[in-house]
């Protein structure tokens, strides 16, 4: 069902709020992977506000939907969402990156409530998510497992091992989403190690592919609806996104893959987020 105007307005507000929080946490942390955090905001916003079943009071709920952030370096973008949802107090994010904080650049599932898997080393999230999806089958539970994969980490061979296996097992309860923001640390993905033609690669491995604008809630909604209904073949959503999305001076700038910001930049970034939403 298409999103209502009210739903879209609400999702946009929540996404803008999350982008603001990411700016704050990046400031507190002294530096973070802000570009890749901003590119995934709209994806995780619709997942946690419309699609996923979970209970912040009972984070280990057996039949909850799972989310694996395979691009673990974007933890700075995900932790504020978990705080907003009530898994923990947002104030604790002020310790981000500090001595013995539960929050480091790559989040730890034994320390961060609501985090379904510890990730950080790239190419690890999809196999773990596949294991969660297969476990649902063994345990006869109907939860879904979403896995957000960075485009740069599509270089990792272990991802392709998992894609092959997910298609083999017809794991339609696993929904991988590629945050295709076109950039990695050293430059543009196409120049460093091209993953093109990405959709054809997934198709050749046995997936149906839905390619969308990862910042358009209507397209995200339609894609997630289809992926959730899949039964014949698993579905991957390739979400074309903009690194740094929402902060005009960070958009499509490789240098904002990782950045530190001072209070002046914080104000500028927040002004840009307000103007863009």
């Amino acid at each position, binding site marked *: 069902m298409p999103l209502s105007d009210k739903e879209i307005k609400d999702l946009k507000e929540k996404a803008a709020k999350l982008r603001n929080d990411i700016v704050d946490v990046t400031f507190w942390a002294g530096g973070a992977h802000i570009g890749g955090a901003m590119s995934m905001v709209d994806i995780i916003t619709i997942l946690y506000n419309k699609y996923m079943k979970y209970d912040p009071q009972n984070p280990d709920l057996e039949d909850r939907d799972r989310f694996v952030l395979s691009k673990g370096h974007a933890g700075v973008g995900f932790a504020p969402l978990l705080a907003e949802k009530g898994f923990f107090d947002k104030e604790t994010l002020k310790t981000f990156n500090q001595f013995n904080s539960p929050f480091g650049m790559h989040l730890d599932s034994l320390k961060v409530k609501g985090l379904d898997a510890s990730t950080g080393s790239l190419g690890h999230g999809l*196999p773990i998510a*596949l294991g969660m999806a297969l476990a649902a089958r063994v345990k006869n539970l109907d939860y879904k497992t979403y896995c957000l994969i960075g485009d740069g980490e599509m270089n990792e061979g272990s991802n392709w091992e998992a894609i092959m296996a997910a298609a083999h097992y017809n794991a339609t309860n696993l929904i991988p989403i590629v945050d295709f923001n076109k950039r990695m640390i050293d430059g543009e993905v196409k120049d460093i190690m091209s993953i093109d033609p990405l959709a054809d690669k997934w198709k050749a491995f046995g997936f149906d592919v839905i390619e969308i604008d990862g910042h358009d809630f209507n397209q995200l909604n339609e894609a997630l609806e289809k992926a959730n209904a899949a039964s014949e073949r698993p579905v991957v959503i390739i979400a074309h996104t903009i690194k740094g999305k929402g902060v005009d001076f960070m958009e499509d700038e490789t240098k904002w893959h990782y950045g530190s910001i001072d209070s002046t930049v914080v104000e500028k970034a927040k002004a840009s987020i307000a103007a863009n939403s």
Partner: protein
Amino acid sequence: MAKEILGTTWTVYDADTLTQAEIYGQVLTDLGKKHPEIVALTADLAKSTKIGKFQDEFPERFFNVGIAEQNLFGVAAGMAKSGLLPVVSTMAAFASMRAAEQVRTDICYQNLNVKIIATHAGLSFGSAGSTHHCTEDLSIMRAFPNMTVVVPADGIETANAVKAAIAHEGPVYIRIGRGFEPTYYKSEDYGFEIGKAVKLREGTDITIIATGVAVLQAAEAADFLKENDNISVEVINMHTIKPIDREAIIDAVKNSRRILTVEEHNTFGGLGSAVAEVIVESGVSCAFEKVGIPDEFSIVGYPEDLYSHYKLDSNGIIDKVREVMGKDFEEDDNWEDEV
């Protein structure tokens, strides 16, 4: 198989006719009946690792992910994180090296309840050469926090180790051979406990601390030396490399003052190193020697020939014991007084 195996109590007949891996496959199947949360995973080695029995019994709880070990251990982590109890079987070389980071970061870092049955360890796949030998895994696995490392002496002890691992919460690495090794134990009832060494021979002149296939060889060497050389050899089966039984080691040092470790592993980083760490930290001095694979890539051959070549068989151990016993430690004036 000539005989129907019932339950998990093993007879002399089983021990003599079934390989380590076959016993493991049977034990796993038996445990699978009691524990619906157990799932078995492998990477195109269901036949080699003998878990086909489990597959026959519980097809919906068996996953062969193909030749893809990184995915194998990642999937196991995801399953464990979702409340299943994955038992993963593949060759030691691939479990400990090809997928080392998945074992460390996905499984140990999250302290997940995954049991790894690493087969074809040491030189047991002798003719395959160094690509399929594995003389590094104890060193690697010992360095991963949360990991428990067990090296059964034979099939009977493998049965005990698998059962103990299932009962233990957290990741466990069980290292076994290819399955053609002669057996030491005749029954399961000798009080196997993870982290607790087993004394096999009493002795006062020297202590052999052995693990895995070297256990039987050490016991045979001890019996020979007692009879022919009048050397009283204590033998300890150190089946758990981590957590190591510190008390058993320190007791042995105080008892015999001469320690010899024997393992089918590089002499760097495995049993010998683990025992040496305990001894040095204890402050009690003793003579100490390690028998194992020297720091080189092992040669090709039948396992028995390789054990002989690397002095891991009873003859090699006997020679080493005589050498240690012949050494003059009296140069140290205070030798007798140091405790």
